[in-house]
Each structure stands twice: as structure tokens, then as C-alpha cells.
């Protein structure tokens, strides 16, 4: 792991238990800054749970027990309470599997975060909305109908809107939970390209169940298997020189 320049997120002995189901077991990982880290593994291995623990989204689910540490900017975010929790989440934009635009217009979706976090005036907000929509490659498609309901967009456009909405509040990290799995191939490709572009400015954590996608985009790989980290390292290392039998089996397509 010598090539890692900075660590954005580090977990120490992270354990997550849902009801009585031990989903994540002693997770110790480091996620490098401004690179694209892919979390891969068979379905049900805890990928999404791991991702959602980074921005404390597990808090809103009943009967979850979390222990260990998640260190972001040298603070253990599991210790944060009350109003500090929205601040952690603000640092981490989320792109979910199915795009969930907010029940408002395209413009208001992007402006929402700005309105709740800053006291920018109308022109400033207009500018940021335009910049973010451009960055997400959506501006040309929506510039003439900014005040239409966001639900009128196609699924692929909605996902890009969610991306624009996330980067509008200047997060440090983008958490992506299989963001292309519900999309058509062309939209999926657009999202992939965007993530590759955005990793220059943001740390991107991508949960994916398609190995090919991980191979195409990832710099760093975390392989989860039944709630444990089996292998982690640079994409080169993991894909070309897997150390564990599980990783070899997964790469060989024997487990999926």
C-alpha cells in the first residue's frame, strides 16, 4: 500500500450487526484520497452496509449495532452526535442504486443542498446549479426546462441529476452504491465516465457487483466476502496477482 498518498476514510475493527445478523466483521480498510475505490464481492456480502456506514446512513435503520471506528479527517465519525451527523453526511455525496430525485423541480433538486447549508443569494445559487449540471453532463438536456418536475427525466438523467445535486454541496467523498445497475448501457457508460472525471476532485467509493466495471474504473479494490475483507490493494495487484483462494475464485467467475 505504499502508493497511497492520503487516506480519506479508515476503519478500525468495524462491526455491524443487524437484528442478530453479523453483517460486517472486523473491517479494517483504508480508502485513498482522490482515487476510485471499488468495493466488490458477491451479493449479500455487506458492500452496501459498509458504504452506508461511512455517512451514518445506518442510523436511520432499526436494530443496528455498530462498533469500532470510522476515521474521516482524523475524527471517529461514530462518536459524532446530534447536529454533527448532518455535517458528516454533507462531506459524503450519495448516489444510490435507484435514483431518488427529491419531489421538486430539476433546479430545486440541485439548489436544495445549497439552500439548507449556505446563505447564497439567488445569482450565486443559479451559477452553482448551472455549473453542477454542466459537470454532470446534464445541462444541455435540461437548460430549457429547469423548472419541470425532476420525475419527468429518464432514469439515466435522474442519476446524473443526483450526481449534480451531490456535488453542489462540495463533498469530499462520493459514495456510489451500484449507481449503474438500474440504468441502460448508454446511461451506465455516461455515469462511469463521469466518475472517472470526478475522481480528480473527489474521493470516489464505488460499490459494484460487476467485476468488469471494477476492472474498467477502479484504482483500488476492497474485496468483501461474507462480511469480511478478504483482500484489498491496488487494482493492478488484486486483479493480476490475487493472493487468496476466494479472490481467485471470484475473478475466475466461480463465485458471484
Amino acid at each position, binding site marked *: 500500500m505504499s502508493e497511497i498518498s492520503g487516506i480519506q476514510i479508515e476503519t478500525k475493527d468495524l462491526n455491524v450487526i443487524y437484528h442478530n445478523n453479523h453483517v460486517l466483521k472486523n473491517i479494517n480498510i483504508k480508502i485513498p484520497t482522490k482515487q476510485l475505490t471499488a468495493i466488490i464481492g458477491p451479493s449479500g456480502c455487506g458492500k452496501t452496509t459498509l458504504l452506508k456506514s461511512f455517512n451514518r446512513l445506518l442510523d436511520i435503520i432499526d436494530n443496528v449495532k455498530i462498533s469500532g471506528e470510522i476515521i474521516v479527517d482524523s475524527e471517529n465519525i461514530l462518536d459524532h452526535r446530534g447536529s454533527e451527523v448532518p455535517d458528516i453526511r454533507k462531506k459524503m*455525496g450519495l448516489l*444510490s442504486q435507484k435514483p431518488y430525485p427529491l419531489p*421538486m*423541480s430539476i433546479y430545486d433538486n440541485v439548489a*436544495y443542498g445549497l439552500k439548507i447549508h449556505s446563505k447564497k443569494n439567488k445569482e450565486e445559487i443559479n451559477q452553482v446549479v448551472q455549473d453542477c449540471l454542466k459537470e454532470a453532463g446534464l445541462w444541455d438536456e435540461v437548460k430549457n426546462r429547469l423548472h419541470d418536475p*425532476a*420525475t419527468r427525466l429518464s432514469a439515466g438523467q435522474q442519476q446524473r441529476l443526483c450526481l449534480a445535486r451531490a456535488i453542489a*454541496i462540495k463533498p469530499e467523498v462520493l459514495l456510489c452504491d451500484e449507481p449503474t445497475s438500474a440504468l441502460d448501457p448508454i446511461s451506465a457508460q455516461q455515469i462511469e465516465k463521469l466518475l472517472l472525471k470526478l475522481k480528480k476532485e473527489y474521493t470516489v467509493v464505488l460499490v459494484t457487483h460487476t467485476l468488469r466495471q471494477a476492472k474498467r474504473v477502479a484504482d483500488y479494490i476492497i474485496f468483501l466476502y461474507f462480511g469480511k475483507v478478504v483482500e484489498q490493494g491496488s487494482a493492478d495487484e488484486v486483479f493480476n496477482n490475487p493472493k487468496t483462494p476466494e479472490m481467485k475464485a471470484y475473478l475466475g467467475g466461480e463465485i458471484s
Partner: protein
Amino acid sequence: MITSVLIVIGSLILIVAIISINGAPSLSIEILSQTSEGGFYLGPGGGFLNAIIGSLLLALPASGLAFLISIALALYLQKDFLKPRTSNFIRLCLDILWGVPSIVYGVFCLAIMIAIGMTGGSLIFGIIALTLLEIPIITRSIDESIKMVPLGLKESAYSLGSTKFEMSIKVVRKQAMPGIIAGFLLGFGRGIGDAASILLTVGDSNYFPSSIFDQTATLPTMILNLVSMPDDAVQNKAYAVAFILLIIVLLISILSRSLIKKSTKYIIK
């Protein structure tokens, strides 16, 4: 199944038809524009504008008040704020209150009026009785519609750094808007048509109420008074009053449909 459909649609058509046929001949500009002073209960004279106004003066403030309380309560019942065990207990209480016959609310308010030494009815206690009657109805309808808001949408709002309050007020409220409007109108419809709870609390009057401590006539109590009169012509006026009540409820229903349609424009399916 077809029989059930026919029973429902048939009874609706019958109700509207019978009320209209019997009520329409008694309807006139005079009856709608005059108060019931001057022998409304005795012969052909007078009108029931005071009852229309009285009913609206009761139901509108009561529904507004009940709505404000209900929307806050319904948002608070969600598991973002309360433990499911606590909120389910509150839901149980609300469901019991929903099932309480409206006359009980009337008797309850009457007991309070007696305890504080008020004699005769007053508009304010009618409003209180109706507010209490409507709170469980409106709260539970809004609550159900908020429970339907997808978890993914809440996650989206949270992941943008919203507080619970911002998430509830700015995102969940918008998504649940059709249900919120429906809940309000359900409460209002129940309030304006309820006779039992106000029978004991607002009294009766032939004039417009001039303050909230005045007695007032209402459409449901007026129907009750009219049918208990011995004269056929006077009894027929009850149908006219019922007809107006029906029209008001119908208008609310149409209004709610258009409002709900408007508010569904933005919601996520």
C-alpha cells in the same frame, strides 16, 4: 362483486336523487339568503343562511386547528423522531379516539362547559369538540401517507446533510402532499357534517353569531330541528338543508381532487 359495486353506486345515486327531488322545490334565493328568524320553523318564511355560515364558522377553524396539530403530530410519529414502540402506542390511542362516537366528544365538552360555569352553548366549544373529533382522523391519514415515503428518498435527503427537521418539512412533506390534503379534507368533511358533537355544545340561534361565545345554528342540527316539526311543508325544508350540506361536501370532494392532482406533479413514484 358486481352486486357490491351496484349496491355502492346505487345507494349513492339514490341518496343524491331523493335529497335533490325533495329538497330542490324548497330551495330559493330567499331561503339561501335569509336567516331563520321570522318563522322558518313554523311556516313558509325565513331561510337558513345563518346555519350555512354557522357550519362554516365551526368547521373551518376546527379543521384548520386540527390540521396544524395533526401535521406536527404525524411528522413526529415517524421513526426518525420516536421509537416505533412509542409511536405505535400513540397510533393505538388515535385509532381508539377515531372510533369514539362523536356524541361522546359533545358530552365531554359539555362537562367542561358545566365545570367552568358556562350556560348554554357557544361557538368556541363547538370548535373544540370538532377539533378533537378531527385530530385522530387527520393525523392517521397523514401518518399513513408519510409512512409510504420511500426510504431511499429519506436517504437522499439525509445524504445531502439535511437534519431530521429539514428532511421532514422540505422533502417528506412534499412527497406526502396528496395524502396530507386528503387527510385534511377527510377531517373537514367529517367535521362539517357531524351533528352529535355539536348538538350539546353550540346550542341554536336564529341569527348570525357575533362572537365565539354566541350560540349558533348549524346545518346538521337544523335538519334535526326541522324534521321534528309537525308541519309537512316545514319538514320538507330539511331536505333543502340536507341538499346544501351535500353540495358543500361534493364541492370539497371536487376541490380535493384537483388539489391532489396538482400536488402529485412532483412526487416520486
